[in-house]
């Protein structure tokens, strides 16, 4: 009713055009539960953390304004910030491609017409349900310790038994293994995308004599590229903020080998009681995530294929 009125009004130049229908207040009311939650639980802490980042606020004592001192200290005198940032980036660069590739691989297997395939799909998704939990991280720790079950299995096969969690390099690799193991969510998205690739394309390609690998690279990958892009982006953001695994399995060690930024922020804020400083680190991390995300969006034009030509973007 209101919209039609709006259209009628458009023909009368003297009448001001309404940008929104009169029912906008109802819309606002409907999103109010989310809006209140967002403002209180997300926007407010976000703004406060920005303010704190310019203070020497400790959890126990209100801070005083210190300007950009926290940010300067991060890059000049904190010997663990750049190290931690480097480890976080290394972790992201290794874990994200591994996880996405593995999820795609499993999705392609589960996309085949096999007997009892739904059962397998459920089973393969299970690690993702449990994967983020503290209990699994503890289990992982016991599995990968020097005389844990993994090394015992390797021992029976007469293979080398690395000190998975005792060596800074292998400790990070163990973290990567855990996150790759939680491939279920990406896999489900890939599975949905694979189902949506029109079979006619494969039939036409087969008629033209295209091999299976060629079909994969020339049809499958371009067709599911929006989902690949989405998965890479989300996994990158998650990896840059990883906290649970290094906190529970190695506590950032050994020798800061798994001291990811998420853990450093937590330790600075709650163990060393430097909330202002930790807030500044959070904002630097936020800026890094933002820049990476923007860059990914920019490059996506070159390799992501949208059926509708990317009209929504």
């Amino acid at each position, binding site marked *: 009713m209101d919209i039609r009125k709006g259209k009628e009004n458009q023909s009368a130049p003297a009448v001001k055009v309404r940008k929104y229908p009169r029912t906008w207040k109802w819309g606002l*009311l409907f999103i109010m539960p989310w809006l209140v939650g967002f403002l*209180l639980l997300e926007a407010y802490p976000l703004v406060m953390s920005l303010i704190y980042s310019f203070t020497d606020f400790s959890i*126990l004592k209100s801070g005083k304004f210190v300007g950009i001192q926290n940010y300067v200290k991060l890059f000049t005198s904190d*010997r663990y910030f750049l190290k931690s940032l480097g480890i976080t980036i290394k972790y992201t660069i290794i874990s994200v491609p591994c996880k996405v590739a593995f999820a795609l691989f499993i999705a392609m297997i589960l996309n085949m017409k096999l007997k009892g395939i739904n059962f397998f799909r459920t089973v393969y998704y299970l690690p993702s349900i449990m994967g983020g939990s503290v209990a699994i991280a503890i289990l992982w720790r016991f599995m990968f*310790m020097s005389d844990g079950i993994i090394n015992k299995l390797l021992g029976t096969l007469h293979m080398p038994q690395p*000190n998975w*969690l005792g060596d800074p390099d292998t400790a990070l690799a163990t973290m990567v293994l855990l996150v790759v193991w939680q491939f279920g969510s990406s896999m489900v998205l890939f599975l949905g995308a694979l189902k949506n690739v029109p079979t006619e394309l494969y039939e036409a390609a087969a008629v033209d004599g295209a091999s299976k690998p060629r079909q994969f690279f020339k049809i499958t990958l371009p067709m599911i590229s929006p989902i690949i892009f989405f998965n890479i982006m989300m996994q990158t953001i998650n990896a840059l903020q990883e906290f649970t695994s290094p906190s529970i399995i190695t506590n950032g060690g050994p*020798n800061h080998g798994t001291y990811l930024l998420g853990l450093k922020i937590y330790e600075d804020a*709650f*163990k060393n009681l430097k909330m202002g400083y930790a807030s500044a680190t959070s904002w630097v991390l936020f800026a890094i995530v933002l820049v990476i995300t923007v860059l990914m969006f920019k490059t996506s034009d070159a390799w992501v294929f949208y059926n509708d030509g990317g009209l929504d973007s």
Partner: protein
Amino acid sequence: MRRFKRITGVCLAAGMAAGLISGCGGGTAAKTTTSAAATTKAETASQSSQSGNSSDKVTLRMAWWGGDARHKALLATIDAYTAKHPNVSIEAEYQGYDGYYEKMMTELSSGTAPDIFQFHANWVPDVQGADHYLADLSKFPVVDYSQLPETIIEGSDTYKGERVLYSCSEGGQVMYVNTDVASKFGIDLTKNYTWDEWLQLGKSIHEQDPDTYLMTADIDVLNRLILPIAVSQQTGTSMVDADYKMTFSEEQLTKALQLIADLYDTGTCEPYGDASVFVGQMDQNNKWINGQIGVLLDIVGGYAKYKASITSELGAMAIPRFEGAKCSGVDFSGDMGYSINDKSKNKEVAADFLNYMFNDPEANSILLTNLGYPASKEAQSTLAAAGKIDKVQQDAAAISEKDAIKYTSASNNTDLETIRKNDLQEMIYGEMTPEETAKDIIEQYTDTLNQMKSAK
């Protein structure tokens, strides 16, 4: 129809919004009600001569960390107290040590801390220095400190003239020994080894059995126990004095760091990487449980968990010393205690319960040594006479007290600990020599101590 849809829509939206608002605020509202009621009750209680005996209902919150045995003992103590004081109910909030410190700091700062809570003496300067978070227990005559040694009261419980902690345990550092391993490899529990003898013994044990190590240590043990002890043995005092000055030289620190490097080089200590999986949980170390590690260092209060973790008999022995050491280097003090939240509305009742916990024979007989080796002399003698304190734990307390010193609170500062912890790891992984590490620690100590001094 459209009108009906609108009304339905409004109802649904209003319902959701109300649900959200009540969901966010419900807890607060409930707490406010409790607090308001409790305020009145606390005032009433404070007027009565016997706090906690008032007929008005009072609800206290109490938090602590620990293992199952401590949880059961404290819950039973609460039950015993509330049975005598039916108007008081105590909500228990208990957990393991992991995350307790962070939780307490957050709750104290947000004003949501429990009325009574377990606290570590080392945390007091940071917390009370920031604000008046802990109640001055000397204002509550019901809290009887007469059974605590003056050294504990002054050294651990008092901050800037106020008694803010009631130490429930006392002790210092000691070595716990798997007596089967000791018999097998000839570890003499009665002997106070020198560090050189200790390294020789460790080397020979590891040579005899490559899977066995004389001892293990996680980063906290290296950082908080072995390094300060090794430095203090040379200086005869804690690493930092009350005026925020370092008491050690670069040579002395280098010698202490070299000792740690030697522990690994000789195979005396389990490889750092293996032990790092069990930070804060050395009792769960597989090698210790399987009798492939002979000795652990910890505080006297850790006795129960180590005893429970192995099937062999547990023994106690003194920490080795440098030749000509000025003292044992052990920090003997009240390490853990209970405080009352200064913002609590029921401080009188909380004080009454706190006094019951530590000075009532009934509570002593329930708690036994589950809060560590009792600091109260009365509890010590009563429990010892009743055979409730293990002989080994008594020995451990006596061993740790001999030639011990008391560290200053500045020595245990978190920032200083972090400096040592970071540099120690780099040294162990060969990124720095002990000499370079000592130089670096002293540089960072100097900066941090200057900051601490100016912030004082």
